[in-house]
């Protein structure tokens, strides 16, 4: 599916960083277990399974049981990473996520694999674009969408040491490492990818590198946007959003439905605390079938598209 793109130099399928990190963590801490719904391959847990066969709990195709079992494992003192395609993990088992994980506050790490439109050709039943909106009101869950392989590894490590429920929204669409010096992963804090003064572009996950590329394009036209990597959706870094709003206009970008996810969060925050024009980029609803790359282009989720939307946002600022 993404074979051609995977061969692009410097682009990584972040599932590899996830797999390497979770194996290393499990080697150090015997309490770490993985829970899957027949998703060993798509979760890249084949290596984990070989090294720690007993600690890979495969419940078969049963997501509600999978999440409940995760809660039970946590009750018993284990640290479960419940890993499955995010469309089924969050959709099929949403009540378990709400009641057994968020409300009961069990120390479970939900790992949504192949989020967004990674399964583009398979159609909307396999797209996971509503997950951010579904989970955002469950504020007991820390929601993180890593932007690249480095951040994926850091987020997995952070999740393992954090006491409390976490949702790691991982993607399989190959992305380059962000070119930021001296990085330090801080859950709950936005990361500045490009500094700027004309407007702000707030992105998460697979769209962050595209937002950075858009900023570079705009710089050539004399427009200087600040680009923020808003990896943590819950809790939202209000200070960073306020700072972004101070520049006068915001564009949000996410591999998700524009209703209720990152765009929704930014729109809510600014409407209440710092009203500025906000243009949300992402998917309007169910999208057509097509490759992930085709879908990104179709919805303007590329450097040129984001730059064009940024210029429109600037127009709104000037009115």
């Amino acid at each position: 599916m993404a074979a051609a793109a995977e061969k692009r130099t410097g682009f990584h399928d972040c599932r590899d960083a996830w797999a390497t990190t979770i194996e290393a963590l499990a080697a150090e801490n015997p309490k770490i277990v993985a829970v899957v719904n027949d998703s060993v391959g798509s979760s890249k847990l084949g290596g984990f399974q070989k090294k720690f066969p007993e600690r890979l709990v495969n419940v078969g195709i049963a997501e509600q049981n999978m999440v409940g079992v995760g809660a039970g494992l946590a009750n018993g003192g284990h640290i479960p990473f419940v890993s499955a395609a995010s469309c089924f993990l969050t959709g099929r088992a949403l009540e378990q996520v709400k009641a057994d994980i968020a409300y009961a506050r069990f120390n479970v790490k939900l790992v949504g694999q192949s989020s967004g439109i990674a399964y583009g050709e398979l159609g909307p039943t396999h797209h996971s674009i509503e997950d951010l909106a579904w989970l955002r009101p469950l504020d007991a869950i820390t929601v993180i969408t890593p932007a690249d392989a480095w951040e994926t590894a850091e987020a997995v490590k952070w999740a393992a040491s954090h006491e409390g429920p976490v949702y790691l929204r991982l993607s399989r669409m190959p992305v380059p490492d962000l070119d930021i010096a001296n990085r330090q992963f801080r859950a709950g804090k936005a990361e500045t990818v490009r500094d700027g003064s004309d407007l702000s572009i707030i992105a998460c996950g697979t769209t962050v590198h595209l937002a950075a590329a858009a900023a570079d394009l705009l710089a050539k036209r004399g427009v200087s946007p600040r680009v923020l990597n808003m990896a943590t959706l819950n809790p939202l870094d209000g200070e960073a959003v306020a700072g972004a709003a101070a520049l006068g206009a915001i564009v949000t970008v996410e591999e998700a439905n524009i209703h209720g996810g990152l765009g929704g969060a930014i729109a809510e925050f600014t409407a209440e605390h710092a009203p500025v024009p906000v243009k949300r980029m992402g998917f309007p609803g169910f999208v057509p079938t097509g490759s992930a790359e085709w879908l990104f282009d179709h919805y303007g989720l590329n450097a040129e598209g984001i730059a064009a939307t940024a210029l429109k946002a600037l127009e709104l600022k000037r009115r």
Partner: protein
Amino acid sequence: MTEKNDAASRIREKALWMRRRAFRMVHEAQLGHPGGDFSAIDIIATLYFGVMHFDPARPDMAERDRFIMSKGHATGALYTALCAAGYYTEDWLSTYMQPQSKLNGHPNRNYLPGVETNTGPLGHGMPVATGIAISGQLSRSTHRTFVLTGDGELQEGSNWEAAMLAGSRRLNRLTLIVDRNRLQQGMGTEETNGLDPLDDKFRAFGWDAVMVDGHDVDALLAVLAGDPAGRSKPLCVIANTVKGKGVSYMENKAAWHHGVPNAEQFEIAMEELV
């Protein structure tokens, strides 16, 4: 023999106290699920006062037996059991259903000691109990996990996902008790969405299944206190019960699922529950 009789007598004493006190809780709050409380009380009393290994002073003790109240609405039964077991004092029971009380309509493990998971939406207890049992398997622990479901509750599919896995993994330290009072909110279970033959269903899922009178403490003790080490399968105990057991006007009446007594009804119940 005398020891066993003493144990059963003690359990019956506790169960009587639980019935009286739970009904008073529901009467004072004018809210609750007394029918389902009363069908479950003998089962729960047997578990807490005759079977389970726990220490209220150490609610997080790793080797504790776990009890999951999957029919989470029967808080009259659960809260009086936890009180009698020593997790908190009786004055807590007077706060039942009050604003910001620790004793709300469904149990919360975050502020009520002795509660293992936050149940309420039916069908959640079995997956969690299965996870606890798997955790015990991985830790080579000897703790037991007990989960109590309603029978109507078993219409939820998530129970069967868990049952399938528990059977596959031979979770011999997991015991399910079904409060088989044959009623659900509206009417009978068999008229709504039939469960029978329930024991055959569990055997087909790889469980051992036995039927027992859910109000016969001696029978409950015999089947629940047995050492699981000798088993190779999880155990399902179908406890045949009467919704509202112990109070004449409540017995077998669906309306008492969440009915509340007026003053006169309360007095009648207190006279009958001796």
